[in-house]
């Protein structure tokens, strides 16, 4: 059992949990993820680690409520326990000094790009961060991102905060201004990572993305998370989750992410109905 020490609602439907997991806290590096299972009847879902505190033995997870499991997790309070947390899984991000790094976070992806922006900054890179949200009420980790970035831009789809538009619009501006960019890290919804990768490809700007495939075991055993990168089948759980965005078949990823759409709807509706009764 893994005890939740702190819980905070960062924005509508986005919750932060600080969880006691000493083994994972000691080992985890930016870019790695955990698999969690809430209880005996729960499913196993991958969640990328936002922060760790090896001394306190805690990890921080930022989770958006999108399906049954994440809605249910949203009801967990400090003191509650999560049945299983397994990790750290996947390969860590490659953090090197390359010059100027643009760190892009889309929605809850901001929580994942945050430790990487921080690590790139600590390596001595010039870090430009662009974080984008649907609307002002969904904005998260703005202050944290500001602290680890040389420049920070916030975009909202509806213009209610920061620049109106998508993260890719801001990136396009930077590229067109002639800013020298050595590396782009883009983490967020698959469609956003696809758009960013398509944007940087003609300029030859190396672009790394973190793939959020459906997983079961997370250790290479089942192949649920398979993706195509450079025409080859790879497992996001052990070969990734980070890959060269220019090589990823995003259309396949998007289709595979929707494989259980119907079941996800049934499970969520059933859960919310039961919760409504309680």
């Amino acid at each position, binding site marked *: 059992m893994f005890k939740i020490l702190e819980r905070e609602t960062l924005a509508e439907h986005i919750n932060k949990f600080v969880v006691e997991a000493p083994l994972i806290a000691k080992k985890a590096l930016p870019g790695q993820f955990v698999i969690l299972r809430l209880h005996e009847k729960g499913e196993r879902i991958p969640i990328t680690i936002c922060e760790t505190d090896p001394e306190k033995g805690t990890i921080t997870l930022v989770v958006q409520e999108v399906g049954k499991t994440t809605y249910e997790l949203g009801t967990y309070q400090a003191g509650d326990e999560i049945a299983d947390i397994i*990790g750290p899984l996947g390969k860590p991000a490659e953090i090197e000094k390359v010059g100027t790094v643009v760190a892009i976070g889309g929605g809850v992806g901001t929580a994942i790009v945050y430790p990487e922006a921080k690590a790139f900054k600590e390596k001595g890179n010039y870090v430009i961060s662009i974080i984008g949200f649907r609307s002002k009420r969904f904005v998260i980790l703005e202050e944290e991102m500001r602290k680890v970035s040389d420049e920070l831009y916030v975009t909202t789809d509806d213009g209610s905060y920061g620049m109106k538009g998508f993260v890719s619009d801001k990136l396009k501006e930077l590229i067109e201004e002639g800013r020298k960019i050595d590396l782009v890290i883009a983490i967020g919804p698959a469609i956003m990572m696809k758009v960013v990768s398509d944007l940087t490809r003609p300029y030859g700007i190396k672009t790394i993305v973190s793939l959020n495939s459906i997983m079961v075991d997370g250790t290479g055993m089942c192949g649920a998370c398979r993706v195509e990168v450079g025409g080859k089948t790879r497992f996001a759980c052990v070969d990734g989750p980070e890959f060269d965005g220019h090589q990823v078949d995003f259309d396949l990823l998007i289709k595979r992410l929707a494989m259980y759409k119907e079941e996800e709807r049934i*499970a969520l509706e059933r859960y919310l109905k039961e919760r409504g009764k309680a």
Partner: protein
Amino acid sequence: MKKIPRQPMPKQPPEERIKNFNEVALGYTEELAVKEAERCLQCPRPFCVDGCPVKVKIPEFIKLVKERKFSEAAKKIKEDNVLPAICGRVCPQEEQCEKKCVLGIKGEPVAIGRLERFVADWEAEHGEIEKPEMPEKKGIKVAVVGSGPAGLTCAGDLAKMGYDVTIFEALHKPGGVLIYGIPEFRLPKHIVEREVDYLRLLGVEIKVDVVVGKSITLYELFDMGYKAIFLGLGAGLPKFLGIPGENLLGIYSANEFLTRTNLMKAYLFPEYDTPIKVGKRVAVIGGGNVAMDAVRSALRHGAEEAHIIYRRSRAEMPARLEEIENAEEEGVIFNFLVNPKRFIGDENGWVKGIELVKMELGEPDESGRRRPVPIPGSEFIFEVDTVVIAIGQTANPVLLDVTPEIKRNRWGYIEADYETGKTSMKGVFAGGDIVTGEATVIEAMGFGRRAAKAIDEYLRTGKW
């Protein structure tokens, strides 16, 4: 010689059992068991024991069954086998103990597996599971990585020798392939839990949710005071066919299909959270036991037609005859001498067909089986809604990639001594599928047992 025929196993009727995930074979009653036990000739030189990888004292336990001393029979088996309820169910006895039975020369061998299962279940049902006499604790820590058949056996044997054993398991439940792979209808999960509980009774500590190689390394385990480590990792990396369209939606590896079904209980969705997609027409590619497990699971998930696609003929299928017969009884449709060339998808990316090519059998290959050869121009489209690929597994490199001292062969499996399980890294032993490649539960157990003996010797003498 008494002319008692081999007593048949009572089973759920096929038309009933394909509607549920409950165990197919119901087990002997006391009367059936005693009657079957009476068939045993009590050979002074019992060949059946030679056929058993862990050398269960077969005639002795059968004699106790005949005398209705069921509890004592269970203790007799457990002297050599800590997992009798599992072995009684999933061992290929027809290839091992029963193959050597003298009665089998002219007629049918004693149903040793069924008797073993009966005895283990009887003991559990009568609440008589007792801790055996244990030696004094040695105060020496041994780590076992993986809680499948090899790891459980090795841990049990070492605990019985007085070592402090900790098992590290990556999944959230111990049992390895016994939990995630073999279906409920062949090996009920409460039986696995019962056998695992027996290990706990022996003093074995089990830590789940620990991915050795990721959460913790072998070097750290040694630093923590473990004096020896046994690796029973299992094979654990699914093979795919490497043909176009393999990543279409609705195509599963057998590992994923079975893990969702068995470990995650997807057949109880939405009560359990994990879903599974099983369409009306399901094709399972492969001819081994895993393929049989997958295709029979598909029927129980509600498939209207469940097919086996196998490139050789029935005679070459590696699955146990009993499992093939069970599948046939349940209405599984077997398509022999056909091989997939590509998968065809619909406009949304879901699989809708497989292009199959007909095969004929040529000269024997290195496995001794006749090699299937494609017949040019014989391609045709086989319509499907769901595909499960059950063509085997290879070695999972997660732990080994971060432990370069451990030598691997060209297939990625650990190079370990067959008799001792010793690897190229001092203090590290290995056994089961991660050494042999895919094999049976009992073979993995045999390896675990030999390694336990070697670990004891290493820890007593310090000799590597």
